[in-house]
């Protein structure tokens, strides 16, 4: 009895430990999210009074072709990026998990490949904007030198200014920034596969491709899904790189404007501020992200159910719930 009482008095300390977090969390996280929701039903412009206008902002978002254009731009940049990023990470993973060659230097290459991911997107955007400048940029100068070597002539490509080219340029830069990250995650998955499976396969005399196709690949599928989905959720919020690569006054801007850039325009750009509308855009984007997350949950469940059915396959490791 006495002990229970003392334990309770200890447990009361839990409140004290969680209190600072909770206060700041309520003020700076919970309130802003609810406030944005509230504002999305109002006609608040910059300042002044907000009037309740119901779903008018949402209906405007749905009917605005520029919003859908922005969503399409975002998805296009992301899709090209994920194919390159995951493809490259996958090839690297194949190389480093090969049972026959046993490649060395994983630690070194992992660090080097991850390096571009550390640099602020602002710096990366600025660096490539300067490197890819069609007149003065080093990139075009290199290409022109190479073509001269072969006696051909090179019409400099306007990498940043051409609206047909720049979305793909941004996608390539994005994948250059992120392939190391995906590679590390895939390798973590490979290293999580129990050694016994490989030893058993070696005893059975399985070749490298059989090992790869029957052990590595199926066990990695959940992690690859996880990488792709988290990348999609992040990619839908893409802002820094396209925003800083292409100036709003440039012709190509319409081809790279992402949903976040669209939101920024109505939320924070002097002259076109419509706070209520921007809030509705934020919640529309949230709904899209939510849908993506639900699809992710569904796909994971499906996978688990299927792997339980086929008894012959090694049981899947619980990978990435939550987060």
């Amino acid at each position, binding site marked *: 009895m006495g002990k229970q009482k003392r334990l309770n008095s200890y447990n*009361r300390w839990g409140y004290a430990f969680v209190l600072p977090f909770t206060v700041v969390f309520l003020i700076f996280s919970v309130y802003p999210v609810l406030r944005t929701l509230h504002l999305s039903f109002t006609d608040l412009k910059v300042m002044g009074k907000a009037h309740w206008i119901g779903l008018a902002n949402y209906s405007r978002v749905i009917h605005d072709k520029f919003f859908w254009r922005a969503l399409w731009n975002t998805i296009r940049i992301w899709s090209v990026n994920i194919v390159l990023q995951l493809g490259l990470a996958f090839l690297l993973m194949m190389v480093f998990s090969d049972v026959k060659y046993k490649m060395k230097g994983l630690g070194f290459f992992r660090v080097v490949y991850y390096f571009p991911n550390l640099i602020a997107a602002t710096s990366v955007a600025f660096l490539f904007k300067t490197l890819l400048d069609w007149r003065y940029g080093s990139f075009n100068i290199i290409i022109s030198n190479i073509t001269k070597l072969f006696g051909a002539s090179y019409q400099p490509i306007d990498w940043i200014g051409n609206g047909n080219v720049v979305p793909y340029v941004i996608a390539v830069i994005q994948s250059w920034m992120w392939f190391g990250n995906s590679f590390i995650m895939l390798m973590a998955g490979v290293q999580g596969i129990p050694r016994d499976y490989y030893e058993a396969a070696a005893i059975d005399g399985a070749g490298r491709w059989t090992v790869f196709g029957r052990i590595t690949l199926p066990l990695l599928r959940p992690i690859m899904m996880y990488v792709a989905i988290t990348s999609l959720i992040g990619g839908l919020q893409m802002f820094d790189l396209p925003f800083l690569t292409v100036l709003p006054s440039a012709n190509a801007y319409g081809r790279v404007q992402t949903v976040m850039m669209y939101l920024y325009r109505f939320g924070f750009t002097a002259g076109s501020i419509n706070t209520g509308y921007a809030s509705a855009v934020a919640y529309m984007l949230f709904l899209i992200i939510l849908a993506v997350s639900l699809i992710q949950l569904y796909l994971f469940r499906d996978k688990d159910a299927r792997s339980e059915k086929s008894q012959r396959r090694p049981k899947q490791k619980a990978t990435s719930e939550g987060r």
Partner: protein
Amino acid sequence: MQDQTMDSKTHDRLMKGLLYFALGLLAVASFFPFYLMIINSTRTGVEISRSFSVIPRGHLVENYKQLIKYVDIPRGIFNSILVSVPATLLTAYFSALTAYGLAFYKFKANKVVFGAILVFMMIPGQLSLIGFYQLCTKLHLVNTYIPLIVPAVASPGTVFFLRQYALSTVQTTLIEAARIDGAPELYTFHRIIFPILSPGIATMGIMTFIGNWNSYLLPMIILNKTDKFTLPVMVSTLRSATDLQQNQGATYLAVAISVIPIVLVFSFFSRYIISSISAGAVKG
């Protein structure tokens, strides 16, 4: 028979060589733009636009003088430190405190707080952006560092990670022993729990620092006075300085300076960074 094995051996060796070559090429591709950046920051604008070179020249000081006519780079570094360091320390300390509280104390609100953390880990940051800005306007926090530092106290992702970490590394008997010895709860946390959690705290802390240092959207929205700008915001203002773009050397130098601190952090802590990404993939 003998010949065949010899053949396949040379074949393997050749393949391995090719693979290492390809890996090396990719490594160069990861570094080359940064190398070019460093080289170009030592060349004049005219030299850069006329020809391509991988050999540094001696115009670094000139470029720097040119650059600080447009932006006060030392000020930017100072401001970035002023924001990133306190924010990281707050995240590290309070996340550990909260994680410990949630992991080892039974109280009614425990499940509610933990549930809220799980929900907010799923909610993308952009959802709160407009409400956050409105709040800062109302509280007269625009153009101060408070909105960039204080919210760091509540970092749901870090708390989640450290809670799992605490559950797997801290033994309940240790806490009980401290209580029998009459140690105050807060003392136990500071002297016993915090050191045990420190590898996990370091891992999350480094990622938090890099995130804070590189953060662009929020500082850009909150800060509108030039002398308050953090480094990324400052670098981004260069894009509208068109006459500076004539001198690409200075531009490259600005980017180079903004990259250096992160390179230093990375070269010391790369092991922690890699392990935190791996943990994210496997534990989820």
